[in-house]
């Protein structure tokens, strides 16, 4: 374990260290947090300021001969009037909200099923957790393989069935509407296990007494679920949903590997648009402005979610 020098400082140096030591309830928490905060400021704040700076200019990396100006908020203004931006924002929100919503309810349902006595539960749990263990890149490649025309398992069997029924091949990845739903399906496949795991843990930490009391009162299973399970599960739900929303919002590998934002721009999320702007068109300033806008959206989303959730929790208590 790491030695914490401030806490176990020898007595002779006490004059200085004791001011920072555990007895000082105002300063000591900051001493404990210092390493984390220093690292996060180093890795987090600098890129942020850098992006802020770049976004106020007109740098296009592939055209270094263009004279550089301080353009103020022009890049943001440009994005605000860009229909591509609004389209990508809509796709991102649809993807994030739909995927997290489905993952939450499926994960919760599964976690509740595992509350029952099930033979071989630990083996089955491993099978269920497999998608979460895979690198997102690998999961995306596997599903590209599954949807590969001809030899892919899904295209061969599901598509074959649909052809046999006379509907023709299903355009899983080539139809604009269906492509986004296919991506959501793969995201749900990949991350429901995460929800399942977090919510299983939450369920396991709920005390038994309220349930026993409800049983004596003869409350229905539905009522028990909404008045006992859900309120007591709130802390687990909060962390699972916030983390998952943040990650779904910036899903990258999945979309780039499976559709590259296509067909057309039907699955171009903000993150894919950002990658195209920055790494294909080398429009560094626009990319920086876009990334800051993305960050604002996700911060507002998480903040509102946490606030709503916390206030409800307090009411429940």
């Amino acid at each position, binding site marked *: *374990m790491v030695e914490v020098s401030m*806490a*176990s400082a020898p007595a002779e140096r006490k004059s200085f260290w004791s001011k920072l*030591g555990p007895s000082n309830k105002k300063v*000591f*928490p900051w001493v404990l*947090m210092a*390493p984390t905060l220093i*690292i996060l400021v*180093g*890795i987090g704040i*600098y*890129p942020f300021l*850098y*992006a802020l700076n770049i976004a106020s200019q007109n740098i296009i990396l592939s055209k270094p001969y263009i004279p550089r100006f301080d353009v103020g908020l022009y890049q943001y203004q440009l994005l605000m009037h860009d229909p591509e931006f609004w389209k990508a924002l809509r796709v991102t929100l649809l993807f994030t909200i739909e995927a997290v919503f489905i993952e939450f309810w499926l994960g919760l349902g599964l976690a509740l*099923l595992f*509350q*029952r*006595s*099930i*033979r071989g539960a*630990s083996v*089955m*749990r*491993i*099978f269920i*957790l497999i*998608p*979460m*263990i*895979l*690198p*997102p*890149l*690998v999961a995306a*490649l*596997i599903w590209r*393989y599954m949807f590969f025309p001809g*030899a892919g398992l899904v295209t*061969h069997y599901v598509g074959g069935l649909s052809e046999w029924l006379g509907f023709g091949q299903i355009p899983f990845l080539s139809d604009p509407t269906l492509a986004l739903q296919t991506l959501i399906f793969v995201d749900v496949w990949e991350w429901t296990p995460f929800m399942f*795991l977090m919510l*299983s*843990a939450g369920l*396991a*930490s709920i005390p*038994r007494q309220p349930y026993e009391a409800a049983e004596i009162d003869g409350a229905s299973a539905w009522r028990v679920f909404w008045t006992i399970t859900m309120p007591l599960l709130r*802390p687990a739900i909060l962390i699972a949903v916030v*983390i998952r929303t*943040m990650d779904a919002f*910036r899903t990258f*590998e999945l979309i780039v590997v499976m559709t590259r934002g296509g067909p057309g721009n039907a699955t171009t999320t903000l*993150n894919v648009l950002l990658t195209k702007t*920055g790494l294909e068109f080398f429009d560094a300033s626009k*990319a920086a402005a876009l*990334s800051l806008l*993305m*960050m604002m959206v*996700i911060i507002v989303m*998480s903040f509102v979610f*946490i606030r709503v959730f916390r206030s409800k929790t307090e009411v429940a208590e």
Partner: protein
Amino acid sequence: MSFQDLYKIESPAAPHKPKNWWVYVIILLVCFVNFMPYLWIVMTGLMDREAATASTPTWFFKPTFEAFHFLIVEKGIMYNFMNSTIVAVASTFFSVVIGMFCAYALARYDFTGRDDVSFWVLTNRMMPPVAILLPIFITFQTLKLLDTRLGLIILYTAMQLPFVVWMLTGYFRDIPKRYEESAMVDGDTWFQAFRKVTLPLMMPSITATSIFVMILSWNEFAFATFLTSIEAKTMPPSIMAYSIGASIQWNILGAAVILITAPLVLFVLIMQRQLISGLSQGVVKE
């Protein structure tokens, strides 16, 4: 009480009631859907090139280690495997040890700006990787950290800190303060009390969080691709480089998937009990 104990409460050793059959149907269906794609790519990894590129799914074939030979002998992928192991283990260790104290402070002390610090820590996980790629690249170039394992370890440690802090804060809150306090009344310093009383109680949660962080670090792709080239290249970018040329070579991808997932699958298989009980530890409170 752990997750396992819950079963015992609900299920006396009595034989299973047949009315539960639909639960098994659903769970087995989910197992099938979740496991089948993985099984399929693993099978493909044992095929030769011909079987892997057949125009219909091939179920019966003579397994070969052709793809493994290509990856291990010709491409030397075990070097990347070693890089991945070092980077994942080290960054997990550092992020958990450093984040643990921050989580402790957030859970134990009531100071001004606590909620703001907690939320700010979380916002560090919100920046899209592509957005911070360029500034990180430039910083690494200046500090000579490009294509080094040390660079990746520092970056991953920072990336995982918000997750560690958020996970552990909740668990620290669930451990009653008076255990520590009584240890300190008995003459222990704060750190002794922390090490002897709080840490052992937290161990299951710390283990579970470490498993999560390990999975995330082992699997990280975007930064590994841009910040490493030869010396420090980890598994995910190697898989991309070796299996995708003009077209995807599915059998090589399959073999690579076996190599990259085997340690994690084994690890989670062994640690599953700790994972579940650690995550559900909030039961120390009475």
